């Protein structure tokens, strides 16, 4: 896994962003950026060059699923790995995310191992 890549962590809860960043640091990722909802995330994506997006689903202003659709519709990020990390655990949510082009999906609560496993799959 290339851990020098720039990772954008998107969640409206600061606690969750911290937990995810702690896990990513344990995995030796150092280039981490964060956003507190889809709109702020899109601003970051336009301003910077992001290699991996990890996003929650339910957020104010722009949800993770809408961010995903916007990302997949853009030339710059249509193939960028996108990991949804969310409390939305029902089958229809997963189906919707897959149809929108998500790379992988983690349901909260999660272990560090679960994040590692999913990242390992999508970054190969």
């Amino acid at each position, binding site marked *: 896994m290339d851990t020098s890549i720039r990772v954008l962590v998107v969640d*409206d*809860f*600061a*606690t*969750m962003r*911290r*937990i995810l960043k*702690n896990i990513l640091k344990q995995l030796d990722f150092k280039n981490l950026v964060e956003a507190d909802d889809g709109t702020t995330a899109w601003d970051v994506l336009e301003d910077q060059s992001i290699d991996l997006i990890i996003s929650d689903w*339910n*957020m*104010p202003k722009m949800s993770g699923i809408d961010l995903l659709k916007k990302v997949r519709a853009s030339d710059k990020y249509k193939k960028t790995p996108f990991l949804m990390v*969310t*409390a*939305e*655990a*029902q*089958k229809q949510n997963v189906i919707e995310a897959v149809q929108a082009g998500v790379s992988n999906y983690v*349901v*909260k*609560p*999660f*272990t560090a191992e679960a994040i590692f496993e999913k990242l390992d799959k999508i970054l190969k």
Partner: protein
Amino acid sequence: MDVKLINPFINATINVLETMAFINVNAGTPYLKKENVAVGDVTGVLGLTGVANGTISVTFEEKCILTIVSNMLGETVKEINYEIADAVGELTNMISGQARRELGEMGKVFKAAIPSVIAGKNHSIIHYTTGPKIAIPFGTENGNFTIEVCFER
């Protein structure tokens, strides 16, 4: 209220706290709660819609939530502050998500709003639905917390 609607919240709570905060919790006996005063110091509350409308809340005693959040973040948090409030919101979100997954498997599909958090001694929680308010007490080594579930009749 159908007791089958309660178990998903118990199972979700145990799963969330064991996984994210590495603590064991013991569920007590659910009871009908009449008063609005919260059984603790900080509460996350969110609305549910779908097959029925309702609200759930999760209220933590101070010592309990400080331990939980310290475990989640890997560093000691000593007082109820914005960090704690944020964490309570996320915990409420996760418990709701897991419970809704199990309820969904029972054919009862719900959507959830983004949680709100209230903090302070003797704060009140007012569930704006007509149904009975079921309280589920939980114990941990470092204090207690209570889930309240209220669905319209």
